[in-house]
């Protein structure tokens, strides 16, 4: 059977499964729509959270980043998992006890202020909308690259599938679809990794294979990799060559940002009890860790495999003949993600760190995961599975983000601010309409992705880390922080982070408007979120202490969210 037909069959089957789940898990009330009726088992919720969290970036791009960045890029591994410790210890149980539906609702109630709630809605929308564009782009790319369907048609098909289960089932439909999507994506990610680890190290667990022995040379795998990359003039794979301060702050920003992203936080509103919220964060990290501990092995092995393909046997004096290059290289050259140019006309491929003589002129990092099954010579159905896995990762994250966006609009703006007396039935209708509108807007943005699509993820994390995380944390752990402190803190964190990012990347990412070049103390714009968070904390403290005491009833609210007892009552509304 042709690869194309196989891809269509496997992707079609996975989509049929998602639609089937959607019909089974329709939402009948606002509680089901916003929080899946708070009846989701903690392990199931953990799995859904993992799919929600792991996007096209985790599935497709991360291993490629690791393959070419080496040790430095460990910051993505630590940053995107360490946030779950913060969530489990500092936020999830208390927000579950609070027992409402959205993050801005907590901010508004705890700081007894509609203004604070609106600032939180703005932060949430800015973070979620920028994030969702990247997911929609991933869906379009997967369709156009593998299924011979045009980018725009592919995007509308993907949006249509999400619309069916998100509009129909809300959080309930999304949760159960995400469980299926997790299974598809984790299977697709680990199968090729296991085969490649077996081929290279004889160990079927990639996690152990990474630190195992390279069968061909008898050396440790990482030592072999260090040896060949340095021979070709690249930096040593395991060496630390960048600024330590930047790496620490970058890691911290990703951790704090993870814990502050609303679409992740709301997942913990769906479990029945406070104790379940604690367990569920652990289960989420278990399911995430399966992919995140496989990724460094995939990255290192892909890098080594690529080099030994170009230099058979690892002999750097004997590069591969142009004519003898394998089919997968030719396939990827056709997509434009890989370009090989025989500069010196010797009919051989020279792959080096030197720009002038390097003949692999373009090597897109995203190829590493997508081409893995082909490089390892795995059967066609594995390749098809990887396509379905990439789509599952992008769709599940898009759905989670759209859920956060639509509930902020229907619950926080329409019910919370404009029309508090809205009936449950009308609110449910409003939630469904906002979901549909959010999907259409996200699709339109995905059709014409702004040029800055790659940079906006940094923005999303920066906003979440600098604005939302600190006020939620202070709202739980300090009774002294009042309305004025929270609003001033959020604005200070948000504006300082935006200013720093725009200073180096241009106002609203418009090329040519950047006005700073050398980062202060070597801190990259992507790493500034942690600094923004510190600014938020300080401003919130100073302003709160200079203004009024928090009212008695708010102090009681804080007392009550700190103890699990009584959360059952919150499920009934």
């Amino acid at each position: 059977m042709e690869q194309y037909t196989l891809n269509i069959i496997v992707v079609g089957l996975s989509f049929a499964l998602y639609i089937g789940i959607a019909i089974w898990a329709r939402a009948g009330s606002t509680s089901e729509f916003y929080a899946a009726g708070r009846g989701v088992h903690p392990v199931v919720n953990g799995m859904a959270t993992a799919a929600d969290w792991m996007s096209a970036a985790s599935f497709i791009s991360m291993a490629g980043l690791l393959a070419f960045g080496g040790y430095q890029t460990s910051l993505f591994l630590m940053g995107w998992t360490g946030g779950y410790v913060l969530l489990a210890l500092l936020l999830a149980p208390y927000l579950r006890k609070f027992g409402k539906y959205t993050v801005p609702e907590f901010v508004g109630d705890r700081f007894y202020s509609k203004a604070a709630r609106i600032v939180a809605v703005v932060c949430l929308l800015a973070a979620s909308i920028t994030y969702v564009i990247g997911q929609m782009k991933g869906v379009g790319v997967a369709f156009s690259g593998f299924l011979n369907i045009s980018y725009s048609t592919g995007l509308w098909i993907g949006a249509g599938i999400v619309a069916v289960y998100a509009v129909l089932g809300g959080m309930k439909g999304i949760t159960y679809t995400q469980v299926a999507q997790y299974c598809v994506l984790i299977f697709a990610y680990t199968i090729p990794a296991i085969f490649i680890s077996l081929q290279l190290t004889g160990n079927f667990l990639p996690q152990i294979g990474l630190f195992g022995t390279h069968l061909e040379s008898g050396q440790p795998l990482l030592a072999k990799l260090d040896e060949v990359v340095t021979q070709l003039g690249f930096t040593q794979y395991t060496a630390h060559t960048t600024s330590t301060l930047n790496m620490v702050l970058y890691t911290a920003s990703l951790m704090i940002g993870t814990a502050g992203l609303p679409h992740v936080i709301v997942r913990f509103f769906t479990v029945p009890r406070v104790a379940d919220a604690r367990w569920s964060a652990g289960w989420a990290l278990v399911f995430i860790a399966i992919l995140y501990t496989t990724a460094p092995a995939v990255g290192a092995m892909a890098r080594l495999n690529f080099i030994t393909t170009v230099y058979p046997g690892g002999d750097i004096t004997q590069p591969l003949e142009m004519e003898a290059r394998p089919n997968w290289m030719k396939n990827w050259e056709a997509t434009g993600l890989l370009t090989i140019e025989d500069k010196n006309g010797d009919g051989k491929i020279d792959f080096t760190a030197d720009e002038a003589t390097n003949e692999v002129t373009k090597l897109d990092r995203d190829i590493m995961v997508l081409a893995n099954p082909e490089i390892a010579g795995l059967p066609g159905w594995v390749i098809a599975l990887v396509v379905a896995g990439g789509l599952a990762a992008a769709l599940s994250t898009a759905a989670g983000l759209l859920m956060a966006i639509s509930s902020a609009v229907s619950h926080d703006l329409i019910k919370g601010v404009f029309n508090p007396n809205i009936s449950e039935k009308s609110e449910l209708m409003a939630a469904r309409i906002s979901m549909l509108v959010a999907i259409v807007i996200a699709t339109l943005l995905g059709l014409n992705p702004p040029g800055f699509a790659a940079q906006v993820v940094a923005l999303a994390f920066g906003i979440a880390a600098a604005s939302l995380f600190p006020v939620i944390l202070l709202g739980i752990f300090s009774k002294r922080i009042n309305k004025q402190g929270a609003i001033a803190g959020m604005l200070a964190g948000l504006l300082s982070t935006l200013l720093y990012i725009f200073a180096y990347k241009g106002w609203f990412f418009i090329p040519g408007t950047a006005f700073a070049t050398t980062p202060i103390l070597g801190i990259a714009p992507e790493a500034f979120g942690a600094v923004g968070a510190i600014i938020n904390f300080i401003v919130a403290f100073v302003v709160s202490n200079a203004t009024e005491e928090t009212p008695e009833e708010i102090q009681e609210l804080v007392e009550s969210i700190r103890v699990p007892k009584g959360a059952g009552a919150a499920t009934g509304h």
Partner: protein
Amino acid sequence: MADKSSSNAYWKANVRLIQVCLVIWALVSFGFGIILRPMLMGIKVGGADLGFWFAQQGSIFVFLVLIFVYAWRMNQLDREHGVEE
């Protein structure tokens, strides 16, 4: 509703546990994985060093243990202080 002094003691115990967990959290990631890596260079782990292992895998395993230990211990504390659901 639990009385005030009991729920104060519960909150203090919770904050103490959080502090211990976060110190370990920072030590394995920012510490062993990044800042203290040069000091751990001598300890070899399969072709790399202990700091590299912590940065790429070890810290994630420790994060997992931390969350489950916290959840287990908090559920105990909930019962000891009579604030469980």
